[in-house]
């Protein structure tokens, strides 16, 4: 009898004081911390942890376990199983790459766990395979490319496009073509992980294009952009923000100056949350944050906000709290579409030099309140 009363009192206390007695939330972060793609994962992890630190007491009950997936799908699946079964996490997050997300997310959400994406947004998870427990806080893969296609309509008539031959690469060019109305002078799919682009650059030179759109994330983009600048071809280059994000700009060097690229975030976005994010990130880690860090920072803040409203053990209430997206996004406004993917503005940015440091500055807005093209195929309402 005593126990029942105690439990009743405890429940009463909780419902009255809310966040202060929030239940512990255990987050499993699977991300890429070694190998060629480690820069992206490290930025995501650092952004996530920074948000929890900045949240102070509100995040005191949030515990994070982090593991390195080495950019290998089979390893990511093993880690996810281990985190769900032995660590008993409530929420999974952190995956950078779409092929890894496709390997992990469907089984994790089928086991009743929440998955919050800090980066990858493959089209099946936005459309036919969407799930009520899968929230994408970053973007759907096509979004940034769609924005560049829209932007290219202003100035260009003949564009040469290229991307690596893998799902996100074909998604990229599909996204670009969805909004681009001009003519394509070439459409080239390169090998994934290719590092020498001399043959493709020679074709661009000979194609008579008035612009080039390329999606080559990580080291591929560094190699391409340097070689493009060195080759003396002066056709304007554009791409999604991934190819010109803060993590690769230093290695590309001045070759990137003036390049237009699209993104949902830039460090000069004028809002309070963003100012605090950029300032504390620099103070904590001694470098400028990338878009991956910004998305992970938002993801962590979303978890903090939802945990303050509902217990993660009450899946329905917690899901509703997530869906409200009641947090101060570094992207300014942010809300979820019916398929749990973002409705957000997408900007065109230009690479500039601030002192010695290359970074991005917003020059225009490509889309306002942009939604992805797959929401209609999703059964969620």
């Amino acid at each position: 009898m005593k126990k029942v009363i105690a439990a009743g009192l405890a429940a009463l206390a909780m419902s009255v004081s809310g966040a202060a007695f929030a239940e512990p939330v255990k987050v499993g972060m699977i991300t890429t911390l070694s190998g060629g793609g480690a820069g992206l994962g490290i930025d995501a992890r650092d952004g996530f942890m920074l948000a929890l630190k900045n949240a102070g007491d509100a995040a005191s009950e949030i515990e994070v376990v982090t593991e390195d997936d080495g950019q290998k799908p089979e390893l990511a699946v093993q880690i996810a199983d281990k985190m769900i079964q032995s660590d008993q996490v409530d929420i999974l997050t952190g995956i950078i790459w779409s092929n890894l997300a496709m390997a992990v997310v469907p089984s994790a959400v089928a086991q009743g766990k929440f998955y919050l994406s800090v980066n990858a947004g493959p089209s099946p998870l936005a459309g036919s395979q969407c799930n009520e427990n899968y929230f994408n806080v970053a973007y759907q893969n096509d979004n940034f490319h769609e924005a560049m296609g829209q932007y290219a309509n202003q100035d260009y008539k003949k564009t040469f496009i290229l991307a690596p031959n893998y799902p996100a690469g074909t998604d990229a060019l599909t996204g670009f073509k969805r909004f681009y109305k001009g003519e394509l002078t070439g459409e080239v799919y390169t090998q994934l992980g290719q590092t020498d682009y001399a043959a493709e650059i020679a074709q661009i030179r000979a194609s008579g294009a008035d612009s080039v759109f390329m999606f080559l994330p990580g080291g591929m983009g560094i190699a391409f952009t340097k070689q493009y600048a060195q080759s003396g071809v002066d056709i304007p280059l554009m791409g999604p923000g991934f190819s010109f994000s803060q993590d690769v700009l230093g290695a590309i060097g001045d070759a990137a100056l003036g390049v237009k690229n699209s993104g949902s975030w830039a460090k000069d976005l004028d809002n309070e949350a963003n100012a605090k994010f950029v300032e504390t990130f620099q103070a904590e880690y001694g470098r400028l944050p990338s878009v991956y860090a910004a998305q992970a920072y938002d993801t962590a803040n979303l978890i903090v906000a939802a945990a303050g409203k509902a217990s993660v053990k009450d899946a329905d209430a917690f899901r509703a709290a997530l869906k409200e997206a009641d947090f101060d996004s570094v992207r300014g406004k942010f809300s979820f579409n019916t398929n749990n993917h973002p409705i957000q503005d997408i900007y065109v940015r230009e690479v500039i030099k601030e002192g010695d440091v290359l970074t991005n500055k917003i020059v225009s807005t490509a889309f306002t309140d942009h939604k992805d093209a797959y929401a209609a195929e999703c059964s969620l309402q």
Partner: protein
Amino acid sequence: MQTALFIEQILNGLQLGVMLFLMAAGLTLIFGVMGLINLAHGSLYMVGAFACAAVAGATGSFWLGLAASLAAAAAAGALVEILVIRRLYERDHLDQVLATFALILILSEGTRWLFGSFPLYLDIPPLLQGTVPIPGGSRYQLYRLAIIGVGVAVAVGLFLLISRTRLGMRIRAGESDREMIGALGVDIRTLYTVVFALGAALAGLAGAMVGALQSVQVGMGEPVLILAFVVIVIGGIGSIKGALVGALLVGLTDTMGRFLLPQLFGVFMDPSRAGLVGGAVASMLIYIVMAVILAVRPQGLFAAKG
């Protein structure tokens, strides 16, 4: 314009070829003399690139960086030989593969520990920036021509070293009969260390030169290592001449495949599909060539031993 594009692509193929030759020469030399399969050769390429980027970043001189890349890769090679590889000569290839694979992991994580996870910046030196006119009316990048020049110089140098010098004589003797030259009083341990360091220095040189074109990052060596293995398998394991011919063959096949196959498929497909299918077949092309050559000549084109 089409002729100019064609000439440019042939030059691109040659440039890729000589770069692969620098990698494959060391790999095949080490296999030919010591009978060792060195998976960590790609890591030495990475060491060269990081040394060049770090020194060039600190001093502002690419040339000092280039010298540092040779020194660092040779030193890393010699150190690895003395500490690890020396114990593996008598063991079978599976043990060697296992140990050198471990070296890849150690060198990669060691480099990350020293330089961090973000790619480093390395640009081509001012002297070699810009382009030069080529026949057909187009222009070609001076730096890539310089790489072709360095590759040819290294090929000639290696030929002279092996056919005309005492060290070369010992290397050839070591290829034919290890025990015998040991019995004749040649210090075989030092010879092995020198050969290993030489191979490593060539890989480091390739890494530094390519680092200025591409991105200097952890893991950059492994894709090149795979191509270098294709080259020595095509050329005949242990043969420097085979490595040269194989490297040029792979370089030209890969470049021309990427250039011509999508156009070929474009004749009977829409451009988007032709790009996808052509690109996919182009990425398989060198492996198809390798399979055909191995079917006809299982020893490779210029097998070192009969």
